[in-house]
């Protein structure tokens, strides 16, 4: 707890934050959603293609391409100086998850673009599997690197969630990809997508709960209060209800599949917003930095 001495909070300078709040804007949680959707849709497309389910493969391929096209627009729009986006491609910097992510997203866009073009226009059929394979491989880091990006900061609720955050994002991506494919594929051919969506939702809710438990009382707090808390509750409700509708009725009724899928997509988006907002909330209040670090010093015996 923050101590009072001489009538003044001692955990910071006039209650001001110790670290700076990130300057990222609304595009970032949306990108985490579209990037995750695209990233998990690519391996889904490959698996559907290999199993001979071309309808499902096409839905997933187009979702991968759609996500890959929207994502860079969101990222460039978030930059303080969008005209200098090309500086991102000046270097390949292994110590910067954002640099690695830029390259993963660019090569993913290229591969999924070729795979989808080949499918829609029926050109380069032989190259398709190759590029589809590349997109599937690149989609895995695309869906998870964003967790590293957040965890590699001094924001306590992101950095201390470093073990569980990739799981939250990967399972949210799986749920999104399954839900999106279930919406755009006839029910008779969408069974694997429904399984992926429902499994993804269960894993997402479980991983988020595990993350909060491992963070402990103090650092789980920002995830449970204010905007982050509201988004988190909304995410669980929407994803849970969507999974129930899609899982129980989505196999018989296309309308149920569309409704359930849409709820799961909205739930995955809300989960990203919850994690994003929790970081801002914890950066704004010096308690989360100072108390957590004081406790660490005590444990070190300093």
């Amino acid at each position, binding site marked *: 707890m923050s101590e009072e001495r*001489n009538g*003044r909070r*001692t*955990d*910071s*300078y*006039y209650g*001001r*934050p*110790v*670290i*700076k*709040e990130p*300057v*990222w804007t609304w595009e970032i949680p949306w990108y985490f959603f579209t990037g995750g959707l695209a990233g998990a849709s690519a*391996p*889904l497309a490959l*698996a*559907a293609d290999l199993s001979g389910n071309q309808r499902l493969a096409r839905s997933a391929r187009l979702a991968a391409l759609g996500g890959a096209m929207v994502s860079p627009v969101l990222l460039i729009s978030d*930059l*303080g*100086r969008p005209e*200098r986006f090309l*500086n*991102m491609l*000046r*270097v390949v910097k292994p*110590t*910067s*998850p954002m*640099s690695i992510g830029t390259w993963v997203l660019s090569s993913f866009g290229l591969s999924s673009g070729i795979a989808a073009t080949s499918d829609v226009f029926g050109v380069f059929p032989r190259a398709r599997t190759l590029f589809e394979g590349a997109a599937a491989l690149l989609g895995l*880091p695309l*869906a*998870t690197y964003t*967790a*590293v*990006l957040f*965890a*590699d900061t*001094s*924001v306590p609720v992101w950095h201390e969630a*470093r073990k569980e955050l*990739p*799981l939250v*994002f*990967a*399972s949210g991506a*799986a749920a999104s*990809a399954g839900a999106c494919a279930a919406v755009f594929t006839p029910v008779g051919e969408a069974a*694997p997508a429904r399984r*992926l969506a429902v499994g993804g939702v269960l*894993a997402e809710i479980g991983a988020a709960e595990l993350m909060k438990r491992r963070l402990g009382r103090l650092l789980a707090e920002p995830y449970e209060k204010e905007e982050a808390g509201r988004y988190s509750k909304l995410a669980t409700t929407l994803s849970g209800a969507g999974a129930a509708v899609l899982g129980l009725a989505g196999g018989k009724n296309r309308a149920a599949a569309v409704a359930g899928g849409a709820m799961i997509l909205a739930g995955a988006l809300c989960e990203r917003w919850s994690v994003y907002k929790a*970081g801002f909330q914890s950066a704004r209040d*010096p308690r989360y930095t*100072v108390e957590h*670090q*004081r406790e*660490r*010093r005590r444990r070190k015996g*300093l």
Partner: protein
Amino acid sequence: MGFFTDTSVCIGCKACEVACKEWNDVPDVIGELTGESYDNTSSLGANTWRHVAFIEQRIPTEVPDADGDVRWLMSSDVCKHCTEAPCLDVCPTGALFRTEFGTVVVQEDVCNGCGYCIPACPFGVLDRREDDGRAWKCTLCYDRLKGGMEPACAQACPTDSIQFGPLDELREKANGRLEMLHEAGVEEARLYGANEEEYGMGAFFLLLDEPEVYGLPPDPEVVTRKLGRLWGAAALAAGALAAGVAAAFIGGGR
């Protein structure tokens, strides 16, 4: 090269803040008195590269019913020019670099405003300037160092609270000063950031209270050191994602 800021002799004159703004042509922000103290800049930021904190403390006295004495802690804060700098590591464009003097500088023509360095910094130093979208911070007067001069803040400081020089020499001076204060009975004096094994800072401080009182983190951490483990956790999650997709096809591809 770096800074040793001895806050025990800081008089809060703000000459360092002003000299920094003048030399580096940092936009001035006037008329934002907080009402809490004589501080009108509040914290380090895009337009404040040296920040003088004014901490008003009441010291209880033996006299019953008396309000007690007031003591002022004043301290000039600055970028720590970390010897392992998280801001530099996470920068995706290479705009942040380490100079030949061992300091950390942002190249303003390369910075693309992504803002990654801002939450990476454990001290809340970097910030994005509203009007141009770029990240700004203390350059330790890179241009002056190149010309063989000392940084503007150190030169302007009338009490030598801000000292500039090679880090090992500064550490020696700091230890001497700490000993002197302890002998004089100022038991609460302590060094912050002078022990390179804890957290290497190219700008360290002699403080008269806990670091958090000055708005400094009590136990800063080089978060970027764990990058390998972070990627490991992401690789596990990516593997789980691939397995999940494959598992969805068990029981038929339709």
